[in-house]
């Protein structure tokens, strides 16, 4: 393929957008993210292609497999572009009806439209659905609109214009100044100013430097980076090229989780396409600047999200952190000056260069600028990927975008920041999304995982869950983390088993201070956060476990009696039908009884009982 020059890129962009504007073709945008793939979007795509061919509509409609649309709860999703009609939960069987009624007869297929859970009304247009209308897509500006495997789709929407500007019109200092003006802070969670990081590395004298992208998205409940890579991989590549120019590096690596095969495949295709067009490799766009990019797959170690551990892992060693200083900006990968930024941080960069740092900073709060992408999941109606301006309230994210809690349950807490973060209760839901404000209420911004928990969640059990995760992922290099997290877990298990004492709660608080002050890396230093934040807001639950030997949310198996309350039981038989161990004794119109000899304590009956009759 011909290598593009600067002029060539402009001509190609112009030709592509003119062609798109003049063509009388509607696009059928079908989500091909990991989530929709799992719910069968590939079958839907095949069925639609086949049906359109059969009906002779191929010159009127183009089927596009896009990246993650964002509204994962409703997959597989189809959006008819440009009119914007949103169809959800499609099956291959729905396709003939859809093609006949919408594409041929020109009317909406009511039963496949989104139904608002509150008003019960069908909403035909994507932009009118509350999940989308409260968002501000910047990083996700191409999500669901382009084929992530087509570089021309990306170029048509101003792709590689930021790179062209940075490489041909800007000096490294100007790039760094622009990023500093934007106020962009690291989207991996720590919030370190990106421009400052680049400045440190640019001033480190060395012939060889590296640009790394952290795509080792390990926080449970976080899938922003995966979705960005699946929906718009070129945006990340652009950010890395611009960063390389800023610090004068010529080699980059994307360290990606091996659990994300689709993201890796699409990113690799994007890199190959960019190279073929002269947007990667030697003399990019005729600018004289060289940059090569490789994907490095992780092998399943959470700690490798820590910067020094990640670099050790690329060097082919056990991914264990080392003390800082020296910081990676001075001595990083292979002891050379290195910058490491998160996927979302890089995905912002081309927009900042193209539109200016001031444009970027026009949105947000005083110290947190721009937008933030969140992955919202758990006990919430609208599970998916959302992008809101900094300063938006958590309540807005949970209720306006997220659509509130399903099954009329009560809200209990929202968990931010993964295993290093904390739980925020109802009374602080009006906290704005801002790095510093979120810390004040005991959590951290984190990489963007937002997990909503309803009243059935036991907070002591959640603390135990996170500690189980952290102690399993502790690399074992420093004693406070290796031994401390294990002691934490033992104490929490003791409390969940009903053997805890008040002194155990004191011990948890004391150890939290020690580990925070002495652990080697961020993983250990923040390990106590899930415990501290649940103790701060839900101490009554800890005390119920310890003093009354009771689990208020009915989750801790060893504190449950597995007995049916005859006053509450309505003899409906749901628990009988659900029990896998035939441990429920029930006959029509008779109240249920649990045979404790047979019971395997799987909690299925608790989940099925609508009358809260099992203790």
């Amino acid at each position, binding site marked *: 393929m011909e290598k593009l020059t600067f002029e060539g890129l402009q001509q190609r962009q112009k030709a592509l957008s003119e062609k798109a504007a003049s063509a009388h073709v509607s696009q059928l945008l079908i989500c091909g993210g990991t989530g929709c793939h799992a719910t069968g979007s590939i079958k839907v795509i095949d069925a639609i292609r086949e049906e359109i061919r059969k009906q002779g509509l191929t010159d009127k409609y183009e089927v596009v497999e896009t990246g993650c649309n964002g509204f994962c709860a409703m997959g597989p999703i189809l959006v008819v572009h440009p009119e914007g009609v949103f169809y959800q939960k499609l099956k291959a069987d729905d396709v003939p009806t859809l093609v006949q009624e919408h594409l041929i007869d020109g009317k909406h297929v009511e039963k496949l439209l989104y139904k608002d859970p509150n008003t019960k009304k069908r909403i035909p247009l994507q932009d009118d659905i509350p999940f989308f209308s409260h968002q501000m897509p910047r990083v996700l500006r191409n999500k669901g609109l382009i084929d992530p495997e087509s570089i021309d789709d990306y170029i048509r929407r101003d792709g590689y214009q930021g790179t062209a500007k940075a490489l041909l019109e800007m000096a490294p200092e100007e790039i760094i100044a622009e990023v500093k003006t934007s106020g962009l802070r690291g989207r991996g969670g720590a919030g370190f100013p990106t421009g400052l990081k680049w400045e440190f590395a640019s001033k480190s004298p060395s012939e060889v430097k590296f640009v790394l992208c952290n795509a080792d998205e390990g926080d449970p409940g976080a899938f922003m980076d995966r979705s960005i890579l699946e929906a718009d991989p070129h945006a990340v590549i652009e950010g890395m090229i611009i960063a390389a120019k800023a610090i004068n590096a010529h080699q980059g690596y994307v360290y990606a989780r091996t659990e994300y095969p689709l993201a890796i495949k699409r990113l690799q295709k994007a890199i190959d396409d960019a190279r073929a067009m002269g947007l990667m490799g030697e003399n990019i766009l005729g600018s004289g600047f060289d940059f090569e990019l490789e994907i490095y797959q992780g*092998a399943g170690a959470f700690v490798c999200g820590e910067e020094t551990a990640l670099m050790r892992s690329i060097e082919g*060693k056990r991914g264990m952190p080392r003390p800082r200083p020296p910081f990676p900006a001075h001595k990083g990968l292979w002891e050379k000056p290195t910058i490491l930024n998160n996927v979302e941080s890089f995905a912002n960069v081309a927009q900042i260069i193209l539109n200016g740092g001031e444009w970027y900073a026009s949105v947000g709060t005083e110290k947190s600028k721009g937008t933030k992408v969140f992955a919202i999941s*758990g006990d919430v109606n609208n599970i998916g990927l959302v992008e809101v301006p900094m300063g938006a309230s958590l309540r807005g994210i949970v209720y306006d975008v997220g659509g509130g809690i399903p099954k009329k349950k009560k809200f209990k807490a929202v968990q931010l920041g993964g295993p290093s973060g904390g739980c925020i209760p109802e009374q602080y839901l009006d906290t704005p999304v801002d790095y510093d404000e979120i810390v004040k209420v005991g959590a951290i911004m984190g990489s963007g995982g937002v997990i909503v928990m309803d009243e059935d969640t036991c907070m002591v059990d*959640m603390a135990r869950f996170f500690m189980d995760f952290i102690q399993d992922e502790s690399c074992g290099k420093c004693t406070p983390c290796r031994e401390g997290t294990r002691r934490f877990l033992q104490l929490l298990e003791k409390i969940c088993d009903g053997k805890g004492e008040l002194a155990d709660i004191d011990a948890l608080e004391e150890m939290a201070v020690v580990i925070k002050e002495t652990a080697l890396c961020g993983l250990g230093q923040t390990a106590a956060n899930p415990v501290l934040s649940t103790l701060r807001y839900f101490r009554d639950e800890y005390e119920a476990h310890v003093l009354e030997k009771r689990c208020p949310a009915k989750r801790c198996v060893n504190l449950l009696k597995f007995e049916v309350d005859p006053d509450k039981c309505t003899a409906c038989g749901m628990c009988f039908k659900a029990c896998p161990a035939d441990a429920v004794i029930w006959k029509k119109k008779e109240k249920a009884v649990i045979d404790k000899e047979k019971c395997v304590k799987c909690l299925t009956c608790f989940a099925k009982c609508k009358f809260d009759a099992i203790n």
Partner: protein
Amino acid sequence: MAYTTHPRHPDIDNDMWASIDEIIGRYRHKAGSVIATLRECQDVVGYLPPPLMDYIGRGLNLPPSDVYGVASFYALFSMEPKGRHTIRVCMGTACYVKGIKEVMSRIENAYNLEEGGTSADRRFSLEAVRCLGACGLAPVMVIGQDTHGDVQSDKVLDIIETYE
């Protein structure tokens, strides 16, 4: 010793050794490539028996302790043989909140399996894995290459039974 002398191992046949040699040949002059080599060799054999790790070490000119150190550090690598189907149960927060604990205990009870174990007939291996990032489908279970979303404890065995 040249790395082309193959040790005997019941789970590695000649075709597999040929693939392994090809993999080592690609990586042996590239610094920091032990993780990639181990991953590809594990894809060929299914797991990493110790004689294979020694062999890889000779090929990459690394002491066996380095190879073993890396293989034992990363969760991806297994030194035990796996079942025909690997059931990977997502232990991410969203799946946990939505009841993956019940799903896990149902599988463990039904097949007399423990987390990380393989059934006696080598039909299933059971793994608890870190967040798969498919939180929109929680609770999530992956069998082989198939992702199953919204897996409820009363339905999970019906899904698993379709894998022989």
